[in-house]
């Protein structure tokens, strides 16, 4: 790096909330033309730090220095004016407006009488879009764009100001692999123009691919900065969680029981076709494939949310039809859904009520819900799953992602299911909670549950599964045993280029 002046420097930032020191003396600097990863478990203080940078929160102590000048950010607009730009995970675009209007919203070029100067607007917009090499133009309606392209619009908007530092918050969360490549190109381009970049992500692969340095937060404290080229995943993880993470293969050593669920030639319109598999008690069956391969749709069919167009489902050898979630629950099937916030939990409800929701009709004393029985269930699963919450009265929305996920798992374990389906068990969860949940899944199998795990993360599937079903485009390409499977043949199978063993 030729320029020794940091684009952005944080000095001993402290932010306290009543009873909590959310940030406890955080310092690091981002050089111009550097991609700087910021990592930490959920709750480590990343979001708070970003809010301080964005002027949404004011620090109690410490200084923010932009280009050697101390800066006080009074709000999001002020932060943007000072060259700090955010690309958020959740996009903030107006779907019905054009790309150009979105990019220059609030500062549209004007003609006489205050009318919008459309030719100039388009010209300015297309100039920026040209730099990004995107496949759409200024007039395109934003609602018609893919998520990845919408993100490009956000980035274009960031480029309209003289950005000193651009902060990407989990930018690849909803992107396909091809779209990621485009994003990384753009980031490389920004860096070539001397912009400092803070890149927040849980995904180690990406971090090691595109960043120069990695700064780690833990419990609100700065834990150090590593040069990406001189470190490895283990060292970063250890810095983040303070211990080592076990990701070894983990096939069952115990005897498997009877077949709990058998699916024969199941089809559902265009979503998936001619799918057959079975799960035994004591076994973890992994489902791996790209988003849209039909995995979640199979789970939803088994849980009564979709009606299959052909095929059979057998539970304990008996052929059955599953007509609704209530019916599935009655037949001993539990589903820990893909998205805990929209599907798994009522965020405004307390922990106990969320956990007992599926069985609230059965937990009664006379006409009333039996408080004692509910609390007993909550206490039991809080202890068993090591859920950290001040008490059952705590609103679920206030818990960390890992603890929220454990509430969902507890909710379904307390139903004593015959078949437990877990869809993306660790999405958006920090590394520490991840390994706890992996261990939990293994323990459940050892206790005799039949478990189906659907995941988009290969290390996860390899780690927890006894057998792995590889899906591509609505079909099962192959079912691997844990001895057969390798990363290579699994990738080939889910990309549709592998051997076609039906």
């Amino acid at each position, binding site marked *: 790096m030729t320029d020794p002046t940091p684009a952005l420097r944080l000095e001993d930032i402290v932010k306290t909330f009543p009873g909590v020191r959310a940030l406890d003396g955080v310092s690091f600097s981002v050089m111009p033309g550097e991609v700087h990863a910021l990592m930490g478990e959920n709750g480590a203080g990343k979001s708070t730090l970003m809010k301080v940078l964005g002027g949404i929160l004011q620090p109690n102590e410490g200084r923010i220095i932009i280009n050697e000048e101390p800066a006080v950010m009074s709000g999001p607009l002020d932060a943007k004016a000072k060259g700090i730009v955010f690309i958020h995970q959740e996009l903030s675009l107006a779907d019905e407006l054009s790309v150009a209007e979105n990019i220059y919203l609030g500062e549209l070029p004007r003609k006489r009488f205050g009318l919008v100067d459309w030719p100039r607007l388009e010209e300015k917009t297309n100039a920026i879009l040209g730099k990004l090499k995107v496949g759409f133009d200024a007039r395109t309606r934003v609602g018609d764009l893919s998520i990845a392209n919408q993100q490009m619009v956000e980035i274009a908007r960031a480029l309209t100001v003289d950005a000193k530092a651009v902060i990407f918050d989990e930018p690849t969360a909803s992107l396909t692999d091809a779209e990621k490549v485009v994003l990384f190109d753009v980031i490389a381009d920004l860096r070539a123009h001397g912009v400092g970049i803070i890149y927040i992500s849980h995904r180690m692969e990406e971090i090691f691919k595109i960043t120069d340095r990695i700064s780690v937060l833990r419990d609100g404290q700065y834990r150090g900065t590593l040069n990406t080229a001189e470190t490895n995943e283990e060292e970063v993880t250890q810095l983040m969680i303070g211990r080592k993470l076990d990701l070894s293969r983990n096939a069952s050593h115990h005897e498997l029981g009877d077949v709990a669920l058998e699916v024969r030639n199941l089809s559902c319109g265009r979503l998936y076709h001619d799918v057959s598999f079975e799960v035994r008690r004591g076994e973890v069956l992994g489902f791996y494939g790209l988003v849209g391969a039909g995995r979640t749709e199979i789970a939803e069919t088994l849980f009564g949310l979709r009606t299959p167009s052909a095929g059979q489902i057998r539970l304990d050898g008996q052929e059955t039809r599953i007509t609704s979630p209530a019916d599935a629950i009655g037949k001993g099937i539990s589903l820990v859904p893909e998205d805990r916030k929209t599907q798994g939990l009522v965020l405004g409800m307390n922990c106990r009520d969320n956990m007992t*929701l599926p069985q*609230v009709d059965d937990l009664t004393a006379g006409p009333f819900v039996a408080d004692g029985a509910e609390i007993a269930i909550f206490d039991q699963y809080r202890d068993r799953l090591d859920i950290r919450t001040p008490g059952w009265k705590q609103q679920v929305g206030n818990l960390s992602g890992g603890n929220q996920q454990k509430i969902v798992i507890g909710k379904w374990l307390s139903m004593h299911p015959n078949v437990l389906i877990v869809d993306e068990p660790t999405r958006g969860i920090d590394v520490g909670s991840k390994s706890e949940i992996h261990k939990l899944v293994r323990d459940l199998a050892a206790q005799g549950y039949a478990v189906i795990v659907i995941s988009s993360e290969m290390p996860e599937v390899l780690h927890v599964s006894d057998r792995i079903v590889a899906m591509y485009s609505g079909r099962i390409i192959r079912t691997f045993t844990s001895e057969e499977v390798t990363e290579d043949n699994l990738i080939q199978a889910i990309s549709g280029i592998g051997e076609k063993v039906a």
Partner: protein
Amino acid sequence: MSEMTRQQIGGLLARQGILVAFALFMIGFALANQRFIDPDNILGVIRSSAILGVMALGVTFVVISGNLDLSVGSMMSFSTIVVLDLHDKIGPALAIPAMFAMTLCLGAFIGFLVGYLKLNSLIVTLGMLSAIHGLTLTYSGGKNMDIADKEGTWFSIFGQGEALGIPVPILLFAALAAVLGIALAKTPFGRKVYAVGGNGTAATFSGIKRARVVFSCYVLSALCVAIAGLIQASRSLGSQNTVGQGMELEVLAAVILGGASLLGGSGTIFKTVIGVLILGFIQNGLLLVGLQFYVQYVVTWVIIILAVWLDIAAKRGKLWSPIA
């Protein structure tokens, strides 16, 4: 003001804002006019709030389940007219159950449209407001309805009777509030109402039959309307077709004043009762300080806006927070 004190006041407002505002209003009115805190006046206000209150209890369920009910005003007119008409035709003992059955049918119809056909509750109940008004006018031929023998009927007991020195409407309101309050807070059904309104998708994924819960809330709301109509008819023993006109908004005002969120998932029966009383006492206080009755329409609206504003201000921790 120091940061800490401001936070404490903010916290107090967030939790008890409605009660604080209520207390301030009461003190203000009491200073302006001594009659305001006269026991007779207080009892009178509660009695005249009872009809509105009974309706608000049912609407609380609908709102917590994430829907609206704007049909309760015209439905109450319907119940009142029907029971008064049938009183002379088949006698009060049969008229009352017949009126209840018809009102519940209306509620079930709305519940079917919103719950099972998944139609938007605002559109459905706004349409029903008008449709039921038309139904009432068709039924009555547009004429006022009166009981022939007003002195000789026991039917007046629900609106005019007293037990232990307390007017029957207040007793009915209190008893219904107690029963429904417990039902909402303590039964599986109540729990499911909160779940459906708080996050409908998660409720489905928990095996809750959402349509049935929504349907039940509207039937419950209609039951409350029928009771309100009974009190209304019994109190006046005669009625215009428009007796409940505009009450849907007052009911909604009371529920929101109590702090239930229009997005669903929050609110309690106790808070709604407080909301009803605040509305009643404020309207009464304005009359006592000498304002025209018609001013109430304006004031009710102002109160709703103030309540919503204070609620949001308390949550955000500041009064002035424009859309940014």
